[in-house]
């Protein structure tokens, strides 16, 4: 099975994502930003970096790139799309996941290992996780998750908050000023998914902790989740995404 990783001008974690996929036992494929052709891959990762220099706002120029036309069609057809860090920003700017990523509350670029916890283990992006806090790095200047109160309530009610920053004891860092909340994200949100559940974004980098030689392989829980879900999607004959009514059921 092949899984694609988009390379935008300015992507810097694409090679890491390709490597993590290889570690997970699938064939990694580079998808160039100038082509909307996804080469028949079974899932897509939008990697970290600074696509198109992150000018204007992180992710917005990438939104209009040819490859994103292919990614939008792929997502609409039920394909799995995971945006990591800058990839999350691209998905948010594209309207493929709700909300926006604002400048970190500290105004500082944050580069450190954080703890996040999956809110649910039955999503395509968390199914291989063990439920304990996952320690993986962040590296971003604009990672402060924002959505209006009604949207946040809706995300929580429909189980679309996939990850929150947590303290060492596993308690979510809901307060934007909590030291365990590294960027001031509202309600401690580190990752969300779309209504159909097949497009997700998160700020931390699972692919950068994908082998013991990198210090830890805790991030592989999320990479393996994606791989398992993509295999299942292929085995089922690439089913269309769940409708809104099915997603709520």
């Amino acid at each position, binding site marked *: 099975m092949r899984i694609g990783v988009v390379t935008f001008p300015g992507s810097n974690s694409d090679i890491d994502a390709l490597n993590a996929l290889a570690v997970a036992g699938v064939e990694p494929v580079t998808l160039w930003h100038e082509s909307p052709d996804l080469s028949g891959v079974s899932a897509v990762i939008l990697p970290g970096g600074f696509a198109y220099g992150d000018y204007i706002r992180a992710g917005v*120029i990438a939104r209009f790139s040819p490859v994103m036309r292919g990614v939008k069609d792929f997502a609409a057809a039920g394909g799995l799309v995971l945006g990591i860090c800058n990839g999350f920003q691209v998905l948010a700017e594209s309207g493929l996941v709700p909300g926006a990523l604002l400048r970190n509350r500290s105004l500082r670029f944050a580069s450190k290992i954080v703890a996040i916890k999956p809110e649910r283990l039955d999503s395509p992006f968390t199914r291989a996780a063990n439920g304990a806090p996952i320690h993986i790095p962040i590296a971003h200047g604009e990672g402060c998750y924002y959505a209006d109160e009604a949207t946040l309530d809706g995300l929580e009610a429909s189980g679309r908050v996939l990850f929150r920053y947590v303290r060492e004891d596993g308690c979510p860092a809901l307060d934007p000023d909590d030291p365990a909340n590294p960027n001031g994200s509202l309600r401690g949100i580190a990752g969300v998914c779309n209504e159909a559940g097949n497009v997700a974004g998160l700020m931390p980098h699972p692919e950068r902790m994908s082998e013991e030689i990198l210090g830890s392989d805790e991030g592989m829980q999320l990479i393996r989740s994606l791989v398992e879900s993509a295999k299942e999607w292929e085995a089922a004959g690439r089913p269309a995404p769940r409708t809104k009514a099915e997603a709520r059921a």
Partner: protein
Amino acid sequence: MSEFRYAVNVLPKPGILDPQGRAVELSLPHLNVTNVSGVRVGRRAELTVTAGSEAGARAVVDGLARELLSNPLIETYAIELLEGTSSAVSTKAPSL
């Protein structure tokens, strides 16, 4: 066809945390300024549109402001026609 020059001023929406504005405001006492508040920091883009009418040109700017220059979830924008910069564009090929 005429050229119309615009500025698009983008600001964080009221109520959205603006850490840049806050940082500027917190620095003001260092300048011995104590009577300034409500600082918001945004961005400004200037651009020239070639169009048959000002309304047509403004529609182009409005689309760009909404889709690219601002994110309506978190920002507002205002379009400003810059005076004295619109001019007729010759439709003839320039003589070299």
